[in-house]
């Protein structure tokens, strides 16, 4: 055999290798680690931000102690007066329930690969319809009936709002992402329009005396129960009904759906209607909880819901965990504890979610560093 000389250049420093199937406990471990890394990263940034400020902690250890406690405090703190402690956990559950509800709304559409990012507007328009019902009919009909009318109005309005983009998608294959996004802004201006009619001189609408959600034990349990029911129904709908099956098939491949005789247009429109109806429920809850409306009533939860749904793998039960996590992040009290700007909390949520989503890459791939040089290359080649 001819002589073989040694190579000149090096092999690449890192290369990526696709993993086989990772056991699910390992995948979850990676996800947990990602959350931890995300927290730590944000903590470090916060530490640097406040390093020169008045609330400067003595050491990094002390800082992280306070940092993590602030999240615990925000959602679960128990050492305040008895009544307050109770409320804090209930408030956490309520916030989580409302986020979960909107996340459930986007999930059927997402499972169909219909990127509905208009939950914000759909919920807002539902809230508007419910508030309108309370505004015009409050006091004229019994409270129980008023609540029913508010719910129906919210369902109708949000349903219509969601179906409009789906009609265009089904008929002309318009881009649903842009369409649903733009519908959010339309919804905001519709709310603005009605506020100008209802309170021409004032800047905001005072809380209406009618149309309050029923009190079961406390102000929060009703919302939690409603959302628990919606979660269960959505889970069954997606997993055990023919509609749910059709949604999955259309989401995977439109061609397969056509091949098996599924009417794709019908499924798209129907599924967006379902999405809209769940947004309607959320809108009703907002209306009954706040008894007023502003253009920012939903507070961006319609967008946060997208992430919750993704992180829960579009599974209504798994989404309970992701909505809990996101709620903990949002209720954290980093701002109060360290005196950083309020916007920091939004950044924080974003960064942690980034880590959680990015870790999926490491579940799929393994990073291999360059091994030692092949000193034995010549021998191996013989």
């Amino acid at each position, binding site marked *: 055999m001819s002589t073989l000389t040694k190579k000149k*250049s090096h092999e690449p420093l890192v290369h990526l290798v696709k993993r086989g199937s990772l056991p699910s406990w390992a995948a979850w471990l990676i996800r947990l680690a990602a959350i931890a890394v995300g927290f730590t990263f944000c903590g470090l940034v916060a530490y640097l931000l406040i390093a020169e400020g008045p609330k400067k902690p003595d050491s990094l250890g002390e800082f992280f102690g306070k940092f993590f406690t602030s999240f615990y405090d925000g959602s679960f703190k128990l050492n305040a007066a008895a009544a307050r402690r109770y409320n804090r956990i209930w408030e956490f559950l309520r916030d989580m329930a409302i986020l979960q509800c909107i996340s459930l709304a986007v999930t059927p559409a997402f499972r169909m690969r219909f990127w509905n990012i208009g939950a914000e507007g759909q919920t807002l328009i539902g809230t508007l319809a419910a508030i309108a019902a309370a505004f015009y009919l409050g006091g004229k009909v019994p409270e129980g009936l008023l609540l029913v009318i508010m719910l129906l109005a919210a369902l109708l309005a949000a349903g219509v709002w969601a179906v409009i983009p789906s009609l265009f998608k089904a008929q002309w294959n318009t881009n649903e992402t842009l369409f649903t996004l733009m519908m959010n802004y339309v919804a905001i201006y519709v709310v603005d329009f009605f506020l100008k009619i209802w309170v021409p001189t004032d800047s905001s609408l005072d809380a209406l005396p009618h149309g309050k959600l029923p009190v079961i034990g406390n102000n929060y349990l009703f919302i939690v129960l409603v959302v628990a029911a919606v979660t269960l129904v959505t889970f069954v709908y997606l997993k*055990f*009904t023919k509609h*749910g099956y059709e949604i*999955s098939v259309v989401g995977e491949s439109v061609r397969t759906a056509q091949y098996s005789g599924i009417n794709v247009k019908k499924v798209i429109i129907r599924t967006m209607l379902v999405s809209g109806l769940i947004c309607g429920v959320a809108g009703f809850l907002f209306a009954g909880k706040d008894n007023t409306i502003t253009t920012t009533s939903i507070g961006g939860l319609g967008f946060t819901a997208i992430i919750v749904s993704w992180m829960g793998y579009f599974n209504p039960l798994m989404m309970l965990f992701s909505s809990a996590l996101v709620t903990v992040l949002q209720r954290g009290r980093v701002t109060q504890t360290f005196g950083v700007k309020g916007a920091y909390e939004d950044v924080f949520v974003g960064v942690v979610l980034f880590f959680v989503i990015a870790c999926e890459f490491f579940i799929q791939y393994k990073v291999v560093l360059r091994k030692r040089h092949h000193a034995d290359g010549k021998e191996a080649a013989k």
Partner: protein
Amino acid sequence: MDNKIALSMRNVTKRFGKVVANRNVNLDVYQGEILAVLGENGCGKTTLMNMIAGIYFPDEGQIYKDGQEVVIRSPKDAFALKIGMIHQHFKLVDLFTASENIVLGVDEDGRYNLKNVNSQVSQIAEKYGFHIDPKKKVYDMSVSEKQTVEIIKVLYRGADLLILDEPTAVLTPQEIERLFNVLRRMKEDGKSIIIITHKLHEVLSISDRVAILRKGEHIATVNTCDATESSLTEMMVGKKVSLDIARSQPVNPQARLLVKGLNCKNAEGVQILKDVSFTANSGEILGIAGIAGSGQKELLEAIAGLQLLDSGEITFVNPKKDKPVTFFHKSLRRVKELDAQGSFHDPEGKPISFKGMKNSQIRKLVAADKVLFREDEVMSLRGRTPLEIRSLGVRLSFVPEDRLGMGLVGSMGITDNMMLRSYRKGPAGFLSRKKPKELAEEIIRELEVATPGINTPVRRLSGGNVQKVLVGREIAFAPKVLMAAYPVRGLDINSSYTIYNLLNKQKENGVAVIFVGEDLDVLLALCDRIMVINSGRVTGFVDARTTTKEEVGLLMTQTDRPAQEENE
């Protein structure tokens, strides 16, 4: 030829997750030889070649080019080492001419001198016997011409080691012969050529040596002159395989599906089927031969109700049989149509007519299972959706070319994939997974589907097992007409023969089988009749038992001959 080694691989290993694509492969390529790399699908041939071409990087092992250990990190490195690969899927810019594609990506200072390039391209073409027009745009080219551009592209860059990944898969017999002549000339010129293929007779006719891979390992390299088809197969599969397809004579063939004057356009508005007419008979396998993309896909989809037609008729003929009317009581219009033909009678055979009855009365009678009808002779399928075709009682099964993109749902398990056809049955609203699960278990058992579990996403199964699931489901539907598009593409030899046997069994059961294939040897061995299409036009019908590959190849490429009427 002298014995200088152009390229050698030593202990090369590549893993994808737990799957070992190549394990400790040692391979030598001499200068001025044609080495065939042979192996079943999934044995790691392409992965191995991709490591030489710089697309993958080996996990372990070394590669030597002309005696020097080299590290190939990218296709660019490979080019610098004079290694060029012609991929199975061409990588050309449609809007550019041949020459423009050839110089694309070549580092040259300033502007490209296209005139210069044109003449160089012509020189290379002349030297090796290619036919090429350097100024022709790629979108005007046939598959064979595009391949020529790819080959000249690597020659232009000075490659002395060429790797061709399944170059013959898309060519007609005549084009293959022309390609082989070119390859022989390159060999005489001192170039080394590695050719990947799984067609044994091609290996025997073109190569000097054959390297056989099995499950990622290099089994042996033999001199072609010492090899036979059966010895190669045995090494590839690891055991003796019978390469005969048991073909029976059609029993009592009767027209089952009549297609007349079909014209249709694809999504871009290009006429894709031109006046296609044929008849598929029961108890017979009708092969459809043609270069890929000649309208085979559109033809089958048109029959299945997935393609809009401009004109033409598709008629399904059912054997006469008494049946309850229940399965189409949804379509009153259809019931009335049949009533006008006097098709209905009661279980004793007395004729029934619905004339003058109210719709609700008709519905009641039909729903009571008391009305039978003599299934009418012909049903038009034209303009009907797949669901309508099914509710007419037409048992038409379709194994589409795109298994995971059309026939199955990749992310679902076998049970849920069984439901694609049947999920509408059962209690209103909710899915019933009991029967689909039984069917799934039966298919796993009967067809020996290798799967970790009944709910493992079918995407994770190997190509052969995916196809077994799909064909199994379509056959379980007890079809009268079974259409299969490229059903063995990407399957190993054993799985391929399983599929051939399944199709043959269906034929013996009296099913009209339509088989779209690409391997002419298989078409000739499996089918009873072969219809050849070219650019959407039928160019001829041949008897598969008497025709030759050359005859079919000619029909595949000629365009001027008008469509032949079938003689029945």
